[in-house]
């Protein structure tokens, strides 16, 4: 994927006269240089197309067919800051690095504008040197990443070829005796990760919260007290745990049930909310 190709679509530089431009963003965009017009939808895409401030700077430089070594700092700074301002105006979340770079550019620009002392100090470095070094360095690795992407990739371009080992000697001579704890342990790790990953899928399956409310109320309807974890049906797995847990929280909030515990680390019991006792 070449940045140039994408940004061509994303940044129709000649789209200044587009009606949308004037109607929707008229007031705001009058401050933005004409060649920086970007369709609003494209901005998020635009930001994603860049790997960071260095990448954006490289794009601005390349767009004008300039050499990194010849950066016209004033012009590039103006364009860069215009982009950043536009994104801020549109409330697009900008990584802090983009702002830092803007500050750096502004600083370089101001240092360049200062008149050079007549007795030129040999030791004094061009204010742009460090930025140029970083841009060059970044560009090398950007290119290296592109080269890497071009190489044949296992699982995409090439597939390993395997054959079965000779039949007779295949089976391990010593049978493996596992213990269930090992398996459980592995599954617990999986579940932990699943919980982190997939909490948003609740409700996709046939477990209804409403139904769970009723089941819990029914279960406690005759003044029965049950141990908390007995409310979690074993066969429903993680999803069941989540739905039941949400149901319990909701019922607690509605003061339909209450939790009791006789002491720290003692079992937690659940029972109907007792108004008389409250």
């Amino acid at each position: 994927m070449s940045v140039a190709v994408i940004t061509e679509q994303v940044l129709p530089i000649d789209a200044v006269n587009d009606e949308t431009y004037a109607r929707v963003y008229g007031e705001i965009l009058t401050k933005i240089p004409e060649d920086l017009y970007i369709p609003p939808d494209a901005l998020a895409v635009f930001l994603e197309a860049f790997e960071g401030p260095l990448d954006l700077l490289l794009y601005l430089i390349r767009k004008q067919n300039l050499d990194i070594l010849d950066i016209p700092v004033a012009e590039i700074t103006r364009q860069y800051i215009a982009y950043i301002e536009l994104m801020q105006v549109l409330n697009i979340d900008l990584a802090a690095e983009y702002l830092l770079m803007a500050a750096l550019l502004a600083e370089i620009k101001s240092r360049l504008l200062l008149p050079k002392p007549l007795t030129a100090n040999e030791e004094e470095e061009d204010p742009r040197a460090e930025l140029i070094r970083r841009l060059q360095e970044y560009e090398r690795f950007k290119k290296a990443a592109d080269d890497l992407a071009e190489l044949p990739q296992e699982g995409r371009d090439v597939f390993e070829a395997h054959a079965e080992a000779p039949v007779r000697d295949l089976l391990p001579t010593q049978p493996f005796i596992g213990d269930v704890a090992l398996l459980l342990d592995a599954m617990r790790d999986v579940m932990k990760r699943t919980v982190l990953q997939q909490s948003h899928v609740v409700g996709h399956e046939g477990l209804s919260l409403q139904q769970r409310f009723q089941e819990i109320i029914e279960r406690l309807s005759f003044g029965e007290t049950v141990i908390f974890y007995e409310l979690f049906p074993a066969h429903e797995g993680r999803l069941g745990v989540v739905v039941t847990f949400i149901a319990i929280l909701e019922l607690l909030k509605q003061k339909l049930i209450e939790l009791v515990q006789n002491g720290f680390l003692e079992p937690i019991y659940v029972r109907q909310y007792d108004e008389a006792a409250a």
Partner: protein
Amino acid sequence: MKLSRQLVKNVIEGAIFASPMPLSIDDIAVLFADDEKLSRKELQILIKELQTEYALRALELVEVASGFRFQVRAQFSPWISKMWPDKPPRLSRALLETVAIIAYRQPVTRAEIEAIRGVVVSTQIIKALFDRDWIVVVGHREVPGRPALLATTRLFLDAFSLSSLSELPPLAAVRDLESISREIENITVEQQKTEG
């Protein structure tokens, strides 16, 4: 577009070699686009030809219950088997997680296992489970690509000293209940405060 006979044969050959499990004629047929389609008969003839071509190689193309696979001829086992030193096998974490998911969620596809584990399941792991005869292909999910449905075997239960799948501990017991009771504790405390 009609593919050349040689190209089709190469694709079949490559596919059987690249697949971690044996490939059935149906598995092979789906690799070709509609306009490249070949009959089962044609595919079978080409597989026969491949079998002949490998006559002088160290491998043979054999048909087992679930399909075709290449395997190293038994006569070379005295050398090849030295690759697996005879020590009690240690099971990797990734392998355990994978077989645990298959055991609890069977039948499942490899993609489903990957969705649960959140990482790619390597071909080696699937192959290792097949090698141990801990898992088998019990069918195919009727979705594009017809991915194989994996299930555990009797030998898997044997290895973990279980007599049936119902002896697997319920998943809810697996769930770390500690965190939940911690959350509940907070609620209880707050409740007691407001009630007090």
